[in-house]
């Protein structure tokens, strides 16, 4: 799919603007702090119903404005048009519409606009905390499988209920056996959803692995092989079980550690503690990889996610690159850009004209972003 047009008003430092995008490559030049990332954040807002940078709606409304509006029209791979309209309000709930129909739950939005965003923080995917990889997995899986998102929400809800129960019971000095009996109720809910979540995560990692390895090998020929593996926190998920058997085994595991949880006053196991690992030549990138390797590996992983979206949903996601080419070898960057441009719409923000200098793909459109103002260059 690709973005056709967008109009933006009251969003961060951006001057109200309207832009018609190229279905191939769109480049936004500008110095740091001029508004390039803000623009990409606005354009990607309908994909998630929130900022990919983790900002609150409040923060995205321009200083002095009460509301921000982003409207984006897209064409899907089968030729349909979709109009996304987003309203953000200071102190109020955000509002979203698809083709004029209000979107009441974020679950109904997930996967409608398929994008893959690579930004400076994405490098942390390889070397940062487990929650970043978990969150990438959850976002990726939610786009591929809407049922996954609902299961994830249910599982988180049950986990939060159990956490509240354990915390309050510990404070109040409640009878451990009664707290356990109540905690087991929530364990049933957690186990049922966790079994499906963990199976999905394992399958997803297996499908992503060869794709990421191939992309990494293209970016860095002659390098060691990249591997992506799932590290489930629950013992039960490492025994090759599935379906109801897996749910039963997870339930037994959760009930077994019940007394420890009651003593500690918090849940000690569950899919919320899962992790994934990126290995280069068998060595974990977390702690051992160079910054360049971590960046390439994270990029390969994100692009592999894009390929998976196409393989499973026949949708070509829009690729959004926010200032990510600066630390990569130039020849490799160009090859990567050309390969991506051949299959996807690209939105590239860069502070260094070098990153795209001399590259003239068909349909290229270029803008200068300065002080929040967009100016298309000839």
């Amino acid at each position, binding site marked *: 799919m690709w973005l056709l047009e967008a109009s933006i008003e009251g969003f961060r430092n951006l001057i109200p603007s309207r832009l018609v995008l190229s279905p191939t490559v769109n480049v936004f030049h500008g110095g740091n702090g001029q508004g390039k990332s803000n623009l990409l954040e606005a354009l990607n807002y309908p994909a998630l119903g929130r900022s990919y940078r983790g900002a609150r709606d409040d923060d995205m409304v321009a200083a002095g404005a009460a509301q921000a509006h982003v409207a984006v029209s897209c064409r899907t791979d089968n030729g349909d048009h979709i*109009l996304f309209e987003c309203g953000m309000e200071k102190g109020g709930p955000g509002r979203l519409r698809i083709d004029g129909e209000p979107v009441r739950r974020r679950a109904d939005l997930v996967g409608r606009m398929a994008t893959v965003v690579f930004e400076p923080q994405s490098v942390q995917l390889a070397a940062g905390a487990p929650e970043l990889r978990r969150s990438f997995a959850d976002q990726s899986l939610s786009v591929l499988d809407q049922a996954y998102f609902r299961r994830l929400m249910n599982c988180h809800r049950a986990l939060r209920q159990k956490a509240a129960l354990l915390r309050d019971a510990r404070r109040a000095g409640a009878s451990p056996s009664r707290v356990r009996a109540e905690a087991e109720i929530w364990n049933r809910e957690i186990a049922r959803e966790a079994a499906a979540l963990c199976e999905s995560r394992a399958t997803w990692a297996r499908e992503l692995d060869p794709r990421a390895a191939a992309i990494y090998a293209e970016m860095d020929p002659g390098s060691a092989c990249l591997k992506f593996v799932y590290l489930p926190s629950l013992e039960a998920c490492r025994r090759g079980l599935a379906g109801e058997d897996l749910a039963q085994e997870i339930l037994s595991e959760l009930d077994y550690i019940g007394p420890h949880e009651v003593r500690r006053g918090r849940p000690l196991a569950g899919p919320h503690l899962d992790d994934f690992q990126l290995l280069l030549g068998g060595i974990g990138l977390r702690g051992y990889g160079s910054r360049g390797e971590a960046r390439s590996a994270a990029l390969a992983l994100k692009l592999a996610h894009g390929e998976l979206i196409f393989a499973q949903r026949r949708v070509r996601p829009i690729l959004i690159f926010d200032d990510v080419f600066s630390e990569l070898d130039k020849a490799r960057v160009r090859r990567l850009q050309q390969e991506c441009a051949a299959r996807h719409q690209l939105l590239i923000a860069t502070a260094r004209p070098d990153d795209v200098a001399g590259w003239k793909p068909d349909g290229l459109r270029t803008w200068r972003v300065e002080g929040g103002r967009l100016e298309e260059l000839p």
Partner: protein
Amino acid sequence: MDDRPTLALKRGAADAGGEFRSPALERLVRALARLPGLGRKSATRIALQLLRGAGDPAEELMTALAEARLHVRTCGRCGCLTEDDPCAVCSSASRDATVVCVVALPVDVLPFERAGFYRGRYFVLGGLLSPLDGVRADDLPFARLLERFDVDGVREAILAFDASVEGEATALYIQRLLADRDVRLTRLATGIPVGGSLAYTDEATLLRAFQFRRSL
């Protein structure tokens, strides 16, 4: 086809929620806005209608409120809202006392009574298990529910809770409580609504409908 994005979400300045010069009006709006389902905008509209509407709607509302506060109570047997204790359902000889529909809130009884097909009785829990909201098993009248089962010789209990995590957990808790009793325990089915379109059914509902499909 016109692809141009529109800014249809743009709202007028009047929506921003202004300050009233009258503290009394401001208090009224705030009190109304605390009611479920009402935002400040609707609260303001209702407040102005009450104060300025034809036929003194405020007086009518005050009388109705005072009467309702005086006469409406919860039924000592089932927990439904009623003016007579026990309520009409609990005291009716034509309702089957051995079948009990367990619901979370008094309002959940209304759709059953409107539909009119159900001939058993009710038991209102007053909420669902939710430690996040400070509701634990001890806070819900499970002991009274069991007592009711024993006294009335209940044969079947139908759990009619929301299809939420809390609804599932509460149902499971009751299932455990009744494990050693000879009571048939059922839950309402979830699936495609009558008259609903299969094409627009969300996947979670579809999955439930699929899992609990029935033989023909």
